[in-house]
């Protein structure tokens, strides 16, 4: 072959490879890949290679011993103390070391949440009863995000000196209950997270073709047998997704351990070690090793779920057309359960959110009843230097992050939805996986990469230039999946031929996007952006680690954390922090209302 012929055939090879892509598409792919590679993959890789480089692999064996894993455990899960004729029941904990404590607690939270979530999903999807619509709204309340404070309310309710011990004492009932330590943390997290299982399982259950259940009934399966042999197996994808998210959320939760003063869990240890890494500007091995454990759990679960749900798609076999799920009237026993167990439990789960408001609007809440209605806390937020600066920071970061998210999410959703090519496939995974990557682990990775590693000294170096830019990048990556999903859903509604018709008439790709696609799905992009905005405002993990590197650039959640953990000499800032949480709550309610009106979609953000 002549040289010329060779270059001609090479030219054709390139034309063939690049034929499906316009320049704009290539830019979108490059931008998405670059963003996720730099701020998601690279930090995790940094995390992975850090132990061998900075610490030495032999050092890792200490993580198999106390205080990380403790076999000679001490403590008691339940204590009953009788004194002066009154019984005091104390739920406490047994210390098995940082790593085991976390796995024990997260497993229990997952088990409890799953049992509760499945039961209530079943009731909501198969039974018809007065008050159902009310319950539907009530179950959403525990999901409202009030960083840290809801756990403090839980502590106020059943922790030491809380309402469960004080009210019976005041009434002279002769007993009192205290749930403290890891037990308290488990209960508080169960209250927070069970609705996640509920939402995922519920949506699985209402997608089951009713004829599948009818068929089984027809063959003689009824009641619990029907549930166990048909309904539950077909809902397993929802169960797996919901339970997994709960496990991950519980594992990296900070609110409950802070409120219940549990420091021997992985999330707290990571925060502590990041803090000391920041102070001495040198990496603390705990942050790396514990983060790696969290990431491993998250990634393994995510990949397993993807594979499993992929295999299980039959559960969603859609027989053409829509159907309404079969519902029936509950029997007597079911009614008892609904009104005497379910309603009270849901109400109980809502108390933290309501308690946040109580704290926010009162001067003090020491005894049983709070005292002194006030708006001072809100006034303080807007007038005092530090909180108002933090609020302003958060608003700026959230706006900047959301601006980038809109571009990133639109690009990745478009590429994934419209181009099922080898180049686009990795973006599919990269765009969803931030949902499950523990924020604390990402924060550790980002600090290694940009603070200590190859990007030291760049504008993204949080030690050199303050954390603002790195925070925005972290927020963008962590909270983009919410927008990506909204855009993706919108694109699924827009038939590809609408774009092809424009391309065919001579419109370039960008002209097509702006004249056809964006007008048709703008509303999805907008509501996705709103959702991301809320979650950025409420973001905790990177905010309280990277965000505290320089106080002046700290976001709202970072100073909330600082106030609560005694950065300012004591824990008496709870009312002020609650007021901040209420602001975040208000923004959330606004966004939920807006997206409900605009998209007519249920509040179901949390799911994979």
């Amino acid at each position, binding site marked *: 072959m002549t040289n010329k012929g060779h270059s001609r055939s090479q030219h054709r090879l390139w034309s063939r490879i690049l034929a499906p892509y316009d320049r704009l598409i290539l830019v979108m792919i490059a931008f998405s890949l670059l963003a996720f590679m730099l701020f998601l993959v690279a930090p995790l890789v940094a995390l992975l290679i850090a132990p061998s480089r900075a610490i030495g692999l032999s050092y890792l064996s200490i993580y198999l011993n106390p205080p990380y894993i403790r076999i000679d455990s001490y403590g008691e899960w339940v204590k009953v103390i009788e004194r002066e004729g009154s019984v005091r029941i104390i739920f406490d904990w047994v210390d098995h070391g940082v790593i085991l404590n976390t796995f024990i607690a997260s497993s229990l939270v997952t088990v409890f949440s799953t049992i509760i979530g499945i039961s209530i999903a079943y009731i909501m999807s198969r039974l018809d009863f007065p008050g159902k619509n009310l319950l539907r709204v009530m179950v959403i309340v525990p999901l409202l995000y009030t960083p840290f404070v809801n756990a403090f309310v839980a502590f106020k309710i059943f922790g030491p000196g809380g309402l469960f011990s004080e009210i019976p004492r005041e009434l002279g009932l002769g007993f009192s209950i205290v749930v403290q330590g890891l037990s308290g943390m488990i209960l508080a997290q169960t209250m927070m997270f069970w609705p996640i299982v509920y939402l995922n399982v519920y949506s699985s259950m209402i997608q089951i073709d009713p004829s599948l259940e009818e068929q089984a009934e027809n063959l003689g399966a009824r009641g619990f047998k029907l549930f166990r042999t048909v309904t539950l197996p077909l809902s397993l994808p929802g169960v797996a997704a919901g339970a997994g998210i709960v496990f991950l959320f519980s594992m990296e939760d900070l609110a409950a351990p802070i409120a219940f003063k549990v420091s021997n869990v992985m999330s707290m240890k990571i925060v502590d070690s990041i803090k000391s890494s920041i102070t001495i500007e040198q990496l603390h091995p705990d942050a790396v090793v514990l983060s790696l454990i969290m990431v491993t759990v998250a990634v393994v679960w995510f990949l397993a779920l993807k594979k499993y749900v992929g295999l299980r798609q039959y559960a969603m076999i859609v027989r053409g057309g829509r159907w309404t799920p079969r519902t029936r009237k509950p029997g007597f026993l079911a009614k008892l359960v609904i009104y005497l167990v379910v309603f009270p439990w849901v109400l109980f789960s809502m108390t933290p959110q309501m308690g946040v408001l109580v704290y926010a609007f009162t001067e003090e809440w020491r005894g049983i009843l709070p005292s002194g209605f006030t708006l001072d806390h809100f006034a303080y937020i807007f007038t005092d230097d530090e909180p108002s600066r933090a609020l302003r920071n958060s608003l700026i970061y959230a706006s900047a992050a959301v601006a980038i998210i809109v571009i990133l999410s639109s690009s990745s959703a478009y590429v994934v939805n419209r181009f099922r090519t080898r180049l686009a496939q990795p973006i599919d995974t990269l765009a969803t996986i931030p949902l499950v990557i523990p924020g604390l682990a990402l924060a550790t990775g980002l600090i290694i990469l940009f603070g200590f590693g190859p990007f030291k000294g760049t504008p993204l170096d949080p030690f050199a230039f303050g954390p603002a830019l790195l925070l925005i990048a972290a927020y963008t990556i962590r909270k983009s999946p919410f927008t990506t999903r909204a855009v993706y859903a919108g694109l699924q509604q827009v038939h590809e031929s*609408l774009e092809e018709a424009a391309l065919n008439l001579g419109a370039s790709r960008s002209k097509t996007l702006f004249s056809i696609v964006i007008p048709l799905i703008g509303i999805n992009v907008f509501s996705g952006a709103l959702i991301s905005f809320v979650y950025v405002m409420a973001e905790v993990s990177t905010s309280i680690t990277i965000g505290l590197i320089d106080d002046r650039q700290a976001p709202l959640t970072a100073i909330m954390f600082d106030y609560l953990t005694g950065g300012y000499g004591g824990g008496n800032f709870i009312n002020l922090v609650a007021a901040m949480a209420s602001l975040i709550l208000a923004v959330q309610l606004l966004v939920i209302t807006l997206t409900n009106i605009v998209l007519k979609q249920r509040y179901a953000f949390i799911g994979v």
Partner: protein
Amino acid sequence: MVEVRLENVSKRFGKVVAVDNVSLDILNGEIFTILGPSGCGKTTTLRIIAGFEFPNSGRVFFDERDVTFEKPYRRGTAMVFQNYALWPHMTVYDNIAYGLKLRKLPKEEIRRRVKWVLELVGLVGLEKRFPLQLSGGQQQRVALARAIVVEPSVLLLDEPLSNLDAKLRIRMREEIVSLQRRLGITTIYVTHDQEEAMSISDRIAIMNQGRVYQVGSPIEVYMNPRNLFVATFIGRSNVLKGRIVGATNGLYVASVGTQRVSGILMDESRLSVGDEVFIVIRPESFFLVEDNEVRSVNVFEGKVGLFMFIGSFLQVKLELPDGQKVTVYLSPKTKITQGETLKVGVSPEDVKIYKTLEWEDDLE
């Protein structure tokens, strides 16, 4: 106006070969139809011409220009989509004017041309409507108007009438033909409906399983189907099994049961005695043979089974002595009764012989 040429074009989707080594030459200004059963690769072929898919091998030319990897917006084709693909957020006027605005024509010129095309397709007065406020037929016309208003060099139509009811379908296809004749645009028309294809096309390509089986004028493909698939796919055909017993004067003679049939070999260059063959005869090729007429070949004697008066002809099912059945169309005046024995003949040029078994799957 351009000539469109496909050279050995193949397209795979994973393991599915949607288009298999297709070569076509579509002449300037003609209506060229791609006809074939659903799933045979018609749409994919059209999309390769439009630039929405790119072939794994082979090339596409517009005149002398190689457009194989050209972006769709640089090809100057205009497509009418099966689902019309009208933009729901734009009025009829804006839908139609879209392509003209892209060409940066002056406003006045745009208005003039939209008005012209609206008159052409009979939609004057509906400019301000949105697509969802139109009937199926009207949407169809908007899609057509949007495509032809830009004066494309090639007009591509993908089953444009399949979503319309039967009556409207016939009217619209007549309108499309008369429009095309007036404008002289090279037109590639995809359909699975053979009647539609026969009635509008200058030439037809018959596709099956990704391959083109025959290209020719409607009369050619009907009268001289080059293979068994085309013979059975186009029009109605009787397919009989036989065995070659000899050849005379360029015609092959086969035995079908006890009868002798002579006909033209269509799909191979030669046959030998003893070969199994398929014999295809159209129902309307038969004629009645009087009882006293003496013939030894191309006469079928059978028992009358079901017969039906269709209007312009009488459809009769004959059962041959060896159990094979043939459908015969006779003059509606023919007097017959069920169960009687009937003799029909056929001239050798109407008997097509095929060696290779390849036909439409859902043949009755």
